[in-house]
C-alpha cells in the first residue's frame, strides 16, 4: 500500500546553495510524521516544494498516488494538501469567523456558489472549530488584532475547516507560551485521530515532536540524516551531533 505522500529523491537549489539534496520520505495515511533538523537544514524548503510554492530541481512527489510536481499551489491545495506557515498567515482584515468561513473546502464550489451566502452550517462549523482551538470568545475580533499565538491557533483552525487529507505544519508551537503547548499537542492528536487528518510536522521543540510523532525524519545540511521512531531518533548519535554541531 503506497503512502499518502511519497517524496522520492527531491533536490532543490537556490543559485549556488543546495537547500535539499536527494530527499526521500513517506507519510502513511492517518499517521503523524515529524520532520526535524537544525536551522537551515532545508525543512521549510521541502515544505515549499511539496505544496508547489516553487518548482524543485529533480525527483518526484506523489500525493494520493498522483504526481504533483507540475501543479500550482491552488490545485494542490484543492486536492487536500494544506500547509501552515512559519510566520503564521491569516486574513488580518477579516474577523475570525470570516477567516474560518472562507477557509471552507473549495472542492464543491461552483461558479454560482460564489455569489450566494455561505450556508449557516458553515458558520456553525466555524464556531465549533474556533471553540476547539479555544478562540470562541474572540470569534468576532479582527484576525489582525489577535496576538501571535492566537493567530497561530486561528491558522490551525482554518486548516481544519478545509478538511484536508494531509496537513503540513511548520513549527506549530514556535512562539507559543509554554503553558499552552500541551493544549496544542492535544489538539493536533485529536485532529489526527477524530478528523482523520494526516500530519507532517516540522518542529524544533523536541518534547513536542517526540510526544506527537509516530515516525521522525531528521534533516541536516539539506540531506536526510536519519529516520525512525522517536526513541530511535532520540538515541541516534548522528542526530545528536547535528544539533550540537559536531563536524
Amino acid at each position, binding site marked *: 500500500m503506497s503512502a499518502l505522500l511519497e517524496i522520492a529523491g527531491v533536490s532543490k537549489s537556490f543559485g549556488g546553495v543546495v537547500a535539499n539534496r536527494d530527499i526521500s520520505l513517506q507519510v502513511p495515511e492517518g499517521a503523524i510524521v515529524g520532520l526535524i533538523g537544525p536551522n537551515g537544514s532545508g525543512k521549510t524548503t521541502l515544505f515549499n516544494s511539496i*505544496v508547489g*510554492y516553487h518548482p524543485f530541481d529533480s525527483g518526484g512527489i506523489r500525493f494520493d498516488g498522483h504526481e504533483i510536481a507540475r501543479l*500550482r*499551489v*491552488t490545485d494542490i*491545495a*484543492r486536492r487536500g494538501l*494544506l*500547509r501552515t*506557515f512559519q510566520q503564521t*498567515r*491569516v*486574513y*488580518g*482584515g*477579516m*474577523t475570525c469567523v*470570516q477567516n474560518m*468561513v*472562507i*477557509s471552507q*473546502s*473549495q*472542492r464543491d*464550489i461552483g461558479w454560482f*456558489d*460564489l*455569489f*450566494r*451566502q*455561505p450556508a449557516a452550517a458553515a458558520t456553525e462549523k466555524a464556531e465549533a472549530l474556533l471553540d476547539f482551538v479555544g478562540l470562541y*470568545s*474572540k*470569534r*468576532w*475580533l*479582527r484576525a489582525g488584532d489577535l496576538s501571535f499565538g492566537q493567530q497561530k491557533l486561528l491558522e490551525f483552525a*482554518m486548516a481544519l475547516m*478545509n478538511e484536508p487529507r494531509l496537513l503540513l505544519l511548520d513549527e506549530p508551537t514556535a512562539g507559543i507560551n509554554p503553558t499552552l503547548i500541551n493544549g496544542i499537542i492535544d489538539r493536533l492528536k485529536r485532529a489526527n485521530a477524530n478528523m482523520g487528518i494526516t500530519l507532517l510536522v516540522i518542529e524544533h521543540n523536541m518534547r513536542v515532536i517526540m510526544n506527537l510523532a509516530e515516525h521522525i525524519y531528521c534533516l541536516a545540511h539539506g540531506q536526510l540524516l536519519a529516520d525512525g521512531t522517536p526513541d530511535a531518533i532520540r538515541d541516534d548519535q548522528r542526530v545528536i551531533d547535528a544539533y550540537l554541531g559536531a563536524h
Partner: protein
Amino acid sequence: MNRRLALYGAAALVSLAAPHLLPNYVSQLSMLWVMILFALTWDILGGQMGYNSFGNIVFFGVGAYACAVIQRDAGLAYFPGLFLGLAVAAVLATLIAAILGSGILGLRGHYFAIGTLGLGIAAGELASGWDYIGAGSGLVPPLYPGELGGRELFFYYLFMVLAVVTFVTLRRLYAGRFGLCLNAIRDDEDKAEAMGLPTTRIKTLAWCVAAFFLGLTGAGMGNLLGFIDPRDVAFAGPTFGVWMVLMAILGGKGTLWGPVLGAVVFHVTQELFWTYLLGWQRVALGLLIVGIVVFFPQGILGWAREHWPERFGHRVEEKAS
C-alpha cells in the same frame, strides 16, 4: 432598523425630486451619479480586493464607443437604439475584462497599478487613431428626441437607477461568499492560493462586474454629454481615471458607503472649483489629489472609524460565559 429605512426613504425621495428642485443643475446632478458609479466600481478591485487599478477607464470608454457605434449603425429609432447600445456596451466591456483579466490581473501591487495606467492611456491613444470610431474627433451620438431639457431629465433618472442597481448588487455580493473571497485576496493573496481559493477566477470575475457597470455608465455618458472624445471623455485617464481612485480613498476605501460619500464630496468640490477657478481648476484638483493622498489616506469613513469605533463596525470580545 426603522431609522435605516427612514434614511433610505429620505435619500430616495431627495434623489427622485432633485432635478425638479434644482432644474439648473440637472447635468451636474447626473454627473454626481456617474461619479458615484466610478467610485463604487473602482472600489470593488481597489478597496475590497486590494488591486489598485488606474485602468478601469478602459471599460467606460469601450462602453461609450460601443453604444455610440450601435446607435450610429444599427439603424434603429432613438430609444431602441439606445437600449441595444447599452446592452452591447455592457457585454463588450465585460468580455474585454474577461479577456484582459488573466494576463493583467496576474500582475501584483504597483506593477498592476502602472500596468493598468498604461492600458488606460494606450486605449485612448489607439482610439484617437481609429477612423471607424471617429479617430481624434470622436463620435457624436444621435440627438435625443423630445423637448429641451428632456434629455437631461431622462439621463438623470437613467444614471440614478444604474447607480442604485449597482449599489444594491454590490451590497449583495459583498455580503456573500464573493465578498469574503475579495477580502481574502486583499489581505493575503498567497494564503488564499495556499488554501485552494480560485484566485484567478475571482479576480477576473471582480473585474468583469466592475466592467459591466462601467460599460453601462460609459454608454449613458456619451449620450448625456452629446459627444465622445477619445482622450478627454472616453479614455480620460488623468481625469476620470484618477478621480475614481481618489473618490474611493476620500470616502474610505473598502466600504460600501465610502465611495458614495467620497464621490459626493469630490464632485461638489470639483464643481465649486470649476465655477470659481476656471482654468486653474485642474491645477487645484491636482493639489487636492496630493493633499488627500498624503494627509488623509484613511478617508472619511476610516477617520470616523478611528474616532467612533463602536458606531462604525469595531468588534469587541465577548465576555466568557
